[in-house]
């Protein structure tokens, strides 16, 4: 049985919502009742059925609408997708990885036929049927990175590895938690992470970089990050902050359930075969507070995490204005009972 793709919006009338099945598979990011930065990296191995980890690249009910939103962002601001000249090969690597995995995981929706370098790609949900020559950019409507990531949920950064560091030399970024690819492109691991509080002093980035530099092909890894978003807006970019910033002042005790979203990023790391670059997909999942509290454990735990969050993190994540209102709202769902260890709902 295929996925039931929804028609919905992440702007203007914000018709996005999760089906009950999608709520149950939400990647709740807290394994305990508190949160602090850590080197939270684990192997990215296919996981249990009906979780977002069932396949290496999760495709869900929001796929078609998310891709439409990406096209709108790119039409307005083409600088959201950039690739320095030496990154084209990494773009082909990315295209191969995404096409191969999608076709393998979801044969009813995607298919790839390869005859030497003559490839035939069919993406049924988006109505795409293209034949092209692998390695020849002139046979595609976009460069290979843009072509395939216009068909893949989540943002993608492509990192070149040289001089003992990773360099953000290509990417497509339209569903980000307030950072600018255009500004960060060409920076190294420590430079693009410069604005993050506390983690540098904790040694998180030094250890993480060491791990990533040694990452081998065929052994992908993942971690998660989280923040909050008012209204189910995918494009919370700094570029458009002057347009969406006022959302943060609109939270009231009456509208928390529908307006306030927990935003979880599943970030993955893949070593690419030809270019030796590192692919960093950042997949964003949104859940409304009304949807979150359908799991009593998630409600209790998120209440405690948000209430006790270190102020530096609340400030950095931009939660300061509305955190008290949301904590107050969530407290109704927290009877003080202990929560079980682990991520899943009870």
């Amino acid at each position, binding site marked *: 049985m295929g996925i039931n793709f929804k028609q919905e919006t992440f702007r203007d009338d914000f018709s996005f919502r999760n089906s009950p099945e999608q709520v149950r598979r939400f990647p709740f990011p807290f394994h305990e009742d508190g949160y602090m930065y850590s080197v939270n990296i684990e192997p990215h191995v296919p996981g249990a059925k009906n979780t977002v980890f069932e396949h290496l690249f999760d495709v869900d009910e929001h796929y078609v609408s998310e891709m439409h939103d990406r096209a709108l962002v790119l039409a307005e601001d083409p*600088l959201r997708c950039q690739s320095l000249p030496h990154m084209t090969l990494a773009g082909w690597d990315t295209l191969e990885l995404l096409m191969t995995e999608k076709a393998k995981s979801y044969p009813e929706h995607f298919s790839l036929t390869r005859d030497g370098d003559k490839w035939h790609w069919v993406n049924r949900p988006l109505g795409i049927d293209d034949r092209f020559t692998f390695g020849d950019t002139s046979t595609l409507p976009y460069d290979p990175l843009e072509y395939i990531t216009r068909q893949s949920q989540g943002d993608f950064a492509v990192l070149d590895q040289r001089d003992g560091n990773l360099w953000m030399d290509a990417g497509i970024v339209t569903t980000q938690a307030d950072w*600018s690819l*255009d*500004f*960060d*492109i*060409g*920076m190294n691991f*420590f*430079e*693009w*992470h*410069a*604005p993050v*509080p506390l983690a*540098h002093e904790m040694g998180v980035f030094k250890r993480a970089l060491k791990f990533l530099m040694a990452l081998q092909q065929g052994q992908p890894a993942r971690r998660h990050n989280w923040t909050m978003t008012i209204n189910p807006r995918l494009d919370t970019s*700094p*570029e*458009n*902050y*002057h347009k*969406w*910033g*006022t959302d*943060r*002042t609109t939270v009231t005790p009456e509208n928390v359930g529908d307006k306030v979203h927990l935003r979880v990023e599943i970030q993955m790391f893949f070593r690419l075969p030809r270019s030796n670059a590192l692919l960093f997909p950042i997949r964003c999942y949104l859940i409304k507070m009304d949807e979150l509290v359908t799991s009593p454990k998630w409600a209790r735990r998120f209440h405690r995490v948000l209430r006790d969050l270190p102020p530096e993190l609340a400030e950095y994540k931009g939660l300061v*204005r509305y955190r008290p209102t949301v904590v107050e709202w969530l407290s109704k769902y927290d009877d003080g009972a202990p929560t079980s260890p682990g991520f899943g709902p009870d």
Partner: protein
Amino acid sequence: MSAASMLSRPVYGTLSPQAGKHHLLVADAEGAAAILDLAKNAPADFFAKAHIIYIPGASGPEYIDALKALNPERFYEGPSFAAALPRLRQTFDAAHMGTRLYIAGSEGLIGQVMQVAAEAGVDHASIQTEQRGSLARRVQCVHCKGITENVTTQPVKCSHCGLLLLVRDHYSRRYAAFQGVCINAEDPTDIPPTEEIFR
């Protein structure tokens, strides 16, 4: 995070004479004083192989005579960075292996010369930099992408789109600019006072 520890910001040093076949020294305003200090430790034949490109800016004629007295092989005085740019590009393109590059003065100048040098493929490791004089910043508006030069205040009005920008410490070497982000995006009626802080 304090500006000093912002890891995207370049770290500047102190100019000192390097062994090299040729020396290209680029400075603006007070940056001239860094060249004069370097001269105190330079070998006798250093300036006979040196080309100085100087943009006096706010310093006016103050350092010109002293720089000329170093007897550089070539001396150029330019009215602005933009005016000096074609010459700078050509100089980099013509520069041979073994040319050493020294840049001194405002962060905006250092960043922009580094940009041109990178385009010309000059090896990063062969460049010396020293910050002198004004702490004014070049700021890129993250919204309209326009660059506002010589920013001394926090916040600052974008000279292109007019938004009131918070000048962050996050720095892009590619743009040679700090990032400016709308300071009152969440509440446009909140207009914070403007303070002169980058001087």
